[in-house]
């Protein structure tokens, strides 16, 4: 090993979005009989790297795990460190963490919804939803200075305060986005074509959820009302009024509805948090000088579900072990339950319904069961999916009224 010059990617890390993964669908005619998943293309060894950084650096390291939900990992990591050292963060920091966490949920869900529209052949939805998402990114820029990778978290609190004079502008942008999301939700619920395409497709039962340990909107769409923010409140989630959204059917339609309604709950949380810090001054970060020996667990409800961090300290300034489990790690295996028996045209949206990553779905290839030969590429799948929507549109003969208003 000594003279081999290889940059070894070490440490278990699972890329959430925009990262390469590879699905193999095994098909019998139009029906999917098995799904295989191959990973590791973008394994960066974050857990091993974390052992070589000091505790403050790790906050920024874990932020780089994912570009979409980039604040989820730092929140979970800080929760773990605060659990380890027994730190209670200042109230103002709690509200600011709420705001960052929920803004991220809205932008991530909108991003997903746009892509889902693209997969189904509603490209206008894709364009418009991403336009609405810009407002949220502007808010991020105003609060943190960045549209992504906010660098807001620190063990013991947050790094930047929200200024009073920014709050009216933030609230105005938020209310504009709120109107758009309400319109989108109504349009989805009203549209007969979407209903025909998504209802009863890729159903996950409560038992599947338990067996695979699935989390987040996937679990909540199947009627399992788990949400870390409610079950084990951290940051300031117990200081504001909001409710957990659940639906019963477990199909892709319900997953869409859960995500959109969750955005509205997030807006409620942000509005209340902004009101709570307005006109007040206060500490935003506790000074943490030493991390004692011990172990800590932190979890956070990311847009895709629970992020789990386990940190062990031996009293030095670096972790001995840092275990990270992202939500897609437990959500992706549910494909075994949701895809098998479905048709190829539907698999595209089922895989997307879990919100793993669009590059994930881009790497689908379809194999013929008997010949073990590649028959379709991802672009063919999107085409088939779009054609199916068009066919249904013709059969039904109309589109939802609200789409016309929207588009």
């Amino acid at each position, binding site marked *: 090993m000594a003279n081999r010059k290889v940059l070894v990617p070490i440490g278990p890390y699972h890329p959430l979005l925009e990262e390469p993964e590879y699905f193999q669908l095994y098909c019998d005619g139009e029906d999917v009989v098995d799904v295989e998943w191959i990973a*590791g293309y973008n394994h960066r*060894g974050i857990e*091993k790297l974390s052992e070589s950084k000091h505790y403050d650096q790790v906050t920024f390291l874990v932020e780089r795990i994912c570009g979409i939900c980039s604040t989820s990992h730092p929140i979970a990591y800080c929760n773990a460190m605060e659990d380890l050292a027994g730190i209670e963060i200042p109230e103002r920091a709690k509200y600011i963490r709420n705001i960052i966490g929920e803004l991220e949920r809205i932008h991530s869900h909108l991003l997903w919804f746009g892509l889902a529209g693209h997969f189904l052949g509603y490209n206008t939805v894709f364009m418009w939803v991403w336009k609405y998402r810009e407002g949220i990114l502007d808010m991020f820029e105003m609060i943190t200075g960045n549209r992504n990778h906010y660098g807001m978290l620190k063990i013991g609190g947050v790094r930047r305060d929200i200024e009073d004079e920014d709050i009216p502008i933030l609230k105005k942008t938020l209310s504009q986005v709120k109107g758009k999301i309400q319109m989108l939700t109504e349009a989805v619920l009203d549209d007969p074509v979407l209903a025909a395409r998504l209802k009863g497709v890729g159903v996950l039962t409560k038992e599947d959820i338990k067996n695979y*340990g699935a989390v987040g909107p996937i679990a909540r769409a199947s009627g399992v009302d788990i949400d870390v923010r409610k*079950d*084990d409140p951290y940051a300031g989630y117990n200081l504001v009024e909001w409710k957990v959204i659940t639906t019963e059917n477990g199909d892709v339609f319900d997953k869409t509805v859960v995500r959109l309604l969750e955005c509205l709950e997030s807006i409620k949380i942000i509005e209340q948090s902004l009101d709570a810090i307005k006109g007040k001054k206060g500490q935003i970060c506790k000074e943490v000088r030493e991390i004692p020996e011990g172990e800590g*667990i932190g979890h956070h409800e990311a847009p895709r579900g629970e992020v789990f961090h386990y940190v062990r300290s031996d009293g030095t300034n670096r972790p001995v*072990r840092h*275990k990270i489990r992202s939500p897609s790690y437990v959500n992706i295996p549910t494909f*075994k339950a949701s895809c098998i028996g479905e048709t190829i045209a539907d698999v595209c949206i089922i895989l997307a319904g879990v919100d793993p990553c669009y590059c994930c779905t881009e790497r689908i290839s379809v194999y013929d069961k008997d010949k073990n030969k590649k028959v379709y590429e991802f672009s063919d799948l999107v085409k088939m999916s779009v054609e199916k929507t068009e066919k249904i549109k013709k059969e039904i003969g109309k589109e939802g009224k609200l789409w016309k208003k929207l588009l």
Partner: protein
Amino acid sequence: MIDKLKEKLKDIIKDIKIHNEKKIYLTIDKNDLKKAVNIIFNEMGARFQTVSGIENFNNFELLYHFSFDKEGGIIVSLRTFTEKEKPEIESLTGLIPGIAWIEREIWELLGINFVGHPNLKHFLLREDWEENYYPLRKGVKTNGK
């Protein structure tokens, strides 16, 4: 919660560490693992979170994390050890289907053998990865030397 766990797991528990009211660590023997997980996962209805594998100075440590979401979000971690020479532990894929990936991951990165795992092949590392070279072990540097 602690009383309930004590009652259900009576003789299995070797040691209890209560970090705070929401984080409980139970040390058990690796031969009792299946029994304990069956009670916590199936009888008590906890949600399986993940497994953390840790290399210690003279043994390997595995932590099986379970969350009781509707009982205050309490996280119960089952701590078990396996010896440094030929580390081995029973696979729980028969009990929890969702454990398959993390067992594969620990197998390839730390070199702990999961006896009875149906598909113990490389997961994150490439298929032709060098045998007996486990990157997450302490001796291995991040530059691969």
